[in-house]
Each structure stands twice: as structure tokens, then as C-alpha cells.
């Protein structure tokens, strides 16, 4: 199992931190709208793949850029980063907001994505099964909504109220607000999903309190070729709650 190496790139003036480990075909992981869940879950992948985990601008260890007001800014950011990393074709895995970004990237630049795995992706407008408007939820209530088994998240949260932790969450919420406050969804996203032609795997926990598992049916309509796996007894961070999610993705990418 490889140890993650931390490198910093400057992409159009934004300091971008990338962690990577392992050897083999490259797998890029896009994290979600917060970074509390970490990326250590991806360590088993490093046995077979070169795993590349960038922090999006405005999240975690990467710098801020207040001019990022649209998910497309992130697509452009990653085109630049991948050029700098010399990544031509790679597997792409995205979680939640990162799943939305991964699907958007794949619909626009499909020739660069070998296989696509989406873990409880955001982005769909599904009036019958709408995503929870996470921006409207008080910060202290968010962790409880992310998982069914709170123990997997508890160890990643401070035991007592911690100003730095609160500040870091507020910073990430600010980044999300820049993208989604006035327009939480982009109807154009679904319009171009049919351009995703590569093999695709979608994974979901059936107790997801952020994005209802019923959205898998809507994904199926847009991506009929996708393989969809639903895990019982798991919430939004299904990859933390069910180690078999991590294995299933590794199998799919192999």
C-alpha cells in the first residue's frame, strides 16, 4: 500500500494541493462539498493504481479563488492541472459535489476519461426526489445527516467546539455558496449527460439523507449503460460506511 505524497501546483494563480500514491493506471478522485471525510479510504486502490487526489480550490489544503462562481471554472481548473500533471487519459471517481463535477467533466471531455465512478453524485434536478439543500442546514446538524453509522465520521470531528474547525467548514461553505447559492442546480447539466459514453459505475447508500437513493432511477434514464450498485444501511458517505464500495470501484476500474 502506497503512502500519499503531497505536492503543490500553481494553476492560474491558485495554489492547488495534490496528494498521490501508488503505481499503475491513474485514478483521479474528486472530493465532495466538504473535506472532513478525508481520502484515506482510497489507500487500497494504491495497490493497483496511481491514485491522485487534488483538493478543489476553496477546499481543504488548496487556496481560494473568489472568482470561481460556476462549476465550469472547476472543469477549466482541472484541464490545466491535468495538463501540468501530464495526465492524458485516466479513470475518474467523484463523490457528491465531486461526482457532479466528474460527470460534468466526463460529458465535456469524454475522450480523457477511461472509466467513470460516481458515488452519490449531486447535480440532477429531480423534483420527485430532490437533493437536500445543504446550504440551508445549520452546520452542527450536517455531520449527522452524512452517515447512518455515525462512528465512521465521529473520529474525524473535534471532540469539543473548535474555532479552527468551524472556520474551515465556514470557508468551504463559502466556496459552495459562490457556486450554488443563487442557482443550486444547472438545468444544462442534464441536457449534455448523454455525451458520457465511457463505462460508468454509480454507487449509493439506500439511507442517503442528502441525495435520495431514488435518484439512481433518474441517472439510469440519462446513463442507461451505467452499472448501479445500492448498499443497504448506508448514508451519503457510503464509501466510508461500506468498505465493499471501495473494492467495487477497484474491481470496476481494473
Amino acid at each position, binding site marked *: 500500500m502506497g503512502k500519499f505524497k503531497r505536492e503543490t501546483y500553481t494553476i492560474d494563480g491558485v495554489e492547488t494541493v495534490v496528494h498521490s500514491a501508488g503505481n499503475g493506471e491513474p485514478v483521479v478522485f474528486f472530493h465532495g462539498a466538504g473535506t472532513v471525510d478525508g481520502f484515506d479510504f482510497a489507500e487500497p486502490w494504491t495497490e493497483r493504481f496511481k491514485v491522485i487526489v487534488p483538493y478543489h480550490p476553496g477546499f481543504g489544503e488548496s487556496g481560494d479563488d473568489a472568482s470561481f462562481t460556476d462549476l465550469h471554472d472547476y472543469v477549466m481548473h482541472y484541464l490545466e492541472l491535468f495538463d501540468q500533471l501530464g495526465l492524458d487519459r485516466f479513470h475518474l471517481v467523484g463523490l457528491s459535489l465531486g461526482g457532479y463535477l466528474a460527470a460534468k467533466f466526463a460529458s465535456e471531455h469524454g475522450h480523457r476519461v477511461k472509466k467513470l465512478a460516481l458515488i452519490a453524485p449531486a447535480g440532477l434536478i429531480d423534483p420527485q426526489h430532490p437533493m437536500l439543500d445543504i446550504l440551508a442546514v445549520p452546520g452542527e446538524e450536517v455531520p449527522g445527516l452524512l452517515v447512518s453509522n455515525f462512528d465512521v465520521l465521529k473520529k474525524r470531528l473535534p471532540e469539543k467546539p473548535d474555532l479552527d474547525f*468551524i472556520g*474551515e467548514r*465556514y470557508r468551504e*461553505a*463559502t466556496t459552495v*455558496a*459562490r457556486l450554488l447559492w*443563487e442557482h443550486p442546480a444547472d438545468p444544462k447539466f442534464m441536457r449534455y449527460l448523454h455525451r458520457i459514453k465511457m463505462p460508468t459505475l454509480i454507487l449509493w447508500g439506500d439511507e442517503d439523507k442528502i441525495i435520495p437513493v431514488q435518484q439512481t432511477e433518474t441517472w439510469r434514464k440519462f446513463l442507461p449503460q451505467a452499472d448501479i450498485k445500492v448498499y443497504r444501511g448506508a448514508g451519503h458517505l457510503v464509501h466510508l460506511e461500506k468498505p465493499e464500495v471501495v473494492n467495487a470501484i477497484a474491481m470496476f476500474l481494473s
Partner: protein
Amino acid sequence: MSAALRFNAMHFMPYVHLPEHHQEFKSTWVSFPNKYYDPERGHDLYERYLQELVLADRLGYDAIVVNEHHNTVYSMMATPNLIAAALVPQTKNARICVWGTPPNLMLPNRLAEEYAILDVMSKGRLEVAFPLGTGMEYWANPISPATARDRFKESLKIILQAWTQDGPTTHYGQFYTYRFLNPWPRPFQRPHPPCYIVGTGSPETIEIAAEYGFGYASVFVPQQRAYELNENLRRRAAHFGHTIRPDQLPLLTFVYVAETQEQAEREYIGHLEHFFSDYLRTTPQYLAPPGYLSVDQLKTRAAMADKLHGGFDFNAISSSFFVAVGTPDKVANQIGEWAAWMKTSHINCVMHIADMPHWKTVKNLTLFAEEVMPRLRAQADAGQRVAAE
């Protein structure tokens, strides 16, 4: 303190008929269900509050002040220009202060137009203040708190361009495009009505006031912070070549006057407690939507909030904020001292709060006008004579 002392009567126009179980709600802002608003009782309150502000004009207050908040019992003035329009024909001398509509919550040309209409209707009695708006307003309106400060600056630029440059002009900005910025009417006062920035003294809002040479109407800030705010504004305005006059720095104070100290406290403190505990009750989330504050400001305020545990304490409130409660002598002396310390001639008096009944409001307005204002004016005149000798 200059001789030209000025006294405002400020009113929040709260909706006072809170349901009995209102304390079960974590906030009386943003999400407090509007089924508890009874329009018939609301009508009676508007009638009453407007009378109180008209009385302030009759009693010789120099100005009456209204402002804007949304989704809350704290204020029934979601659109204060409507209230100001109702006051214009009923008042003669008092300046009408709309302090004010957050420019972010209205199209900037329309705000420039509405203010110009009020200024022309009142023959130049309008004064305006520009708030960013509390965090709560951004939960109630469709504008992003994360871009609020940039939008605010652009809106302000558009409004001032509309008022100071002959139209039509154009504006091509980040948030707004105007191909024909040419509002009719133009303001009565030239180049425009007196302007203030409203805020709690953050460096960002002080910088905007300093750059334009505007006054600064601080909201609930502790005495020491208000003092530093005035000092910072004078210093930063000088940097931009502006001299801030004493009348540009309104001192916001809660006021209640009665025959004796004991009577004043007995008649007032319950309302003040109700105001702080219930009408200002909100949540950290509502106060600071994402992006409304910088991360540093958020941490500073979160640290302060941790220290503010415990219930209402009149002595603590009145020693940290400007709260003048007592006999005419006591209130006059206290305000006189504060005005001298703050180097201001402009006293912005909150004359009604929470569920204070009409009779107390009338009593307070009358005693302050007839017993406190003359004392303060005499003090100021004496000070001027001493200075001149």
C-alpha cells in the same frame, strides 16, 4: 461637541403580538412562521407607529428614522420607503431618514429612483443610509451572501452615478448592465441627499464610507467599538481627502425618560429585556450565512458569542451599550458625556422598543423633547461660549 445638536427619533415598528409559545422557536427572524402575523393587529400597529413618528416631528425632533428588515417580528418595515412615503405628507420639518434599504436587495436604479421621489416629495428632507443588510436578510432574499460585498460596492457606484452625472449614462459591471442609466426624477438635494453607511464597524464598511466621505450609522455596537469606529472613520476618510463632520457620526442610543430613576427603570427595563431576549433572538447560522463574513471575522464573532452566555442583565447591557434611562438630568448628562467622548453632535435615539405601549412611547418622546433636548442644547451652548472666551 458642536452647538448644532441634532436629535433623531428612531422606531423599529416591531410586530408585538408574539404567540405565547414563541420561546419554543430558536429565532424570531428568517424562519419564524408568518402565520403568527395578524394583519388586523398589524394595521393597528402601523396606524399607531406612524402617529408616534408624526408626533416626533411635532415635538421638534430634527429627524425621524426608519429602516429595513425581512421575515421578522423585529420590524414591520420590509420596504421602508413605503413608510417614509406615508410620513412625508404628515410631517413638516423633521428630516426623513431611511437608514435604509440594503442596495443588494433592490435594483440599484430603482433604489436611486425611490429615494429621489422621496427627496422631491419632501422638498429635500430625505437622508439615506446604505446597509449591506444583516446576515438574516440573505436567507430571506435571493441574493448570494458570498458575493454581497462586491455587489454592494457596485450598487453604490450605480446609485451615485445616477444621482451625480447627467443622464443618460451607461454602466457595465459584474452584476448589472445599464444601457440607459437616466432615472427620473433626480434628487431635490444637490448633488444628492446626505448619505451614510450602516454597519457594525467592520473594516470593509468603514473603508467604503471613508472613500466616499459618507457618514457612518452604527447599529448595536458596544461603546468602545463605536468609539473606535468613529476614530477609524475619521482617520481613513482623511486618507481619502475627506473630513468627517461631527453630524456625520450618529450615536445610536436607547432612551427612556421618566420622573424618577426608579420609575424610569420600572417602566422600561422589561421592554429592553424583551427586546434583547426575544426580538433579537436568532441563530449563528442566520447571522452568518456562508460567505457573508470572512473566515477571520467569523472566528472572531464565534469566539465572542461563546463569552456571551447567561441571561439578560440590565447593568451589563447599559454599561456596554449606549442606554440612557432615567430622569431628564441623568439622561441629558449621560448623552452629553457620550457625545463629547464620541466627538459627535448627532444623537440617534431609539424611542420605542419591543412591546412598549403607546402611552409610554408618547411619554418618552415628549419628556425627551421637552426636558432633555433643552438641557443638552443649553450644555452645548455653554460649551461653545467657554470655547469662544
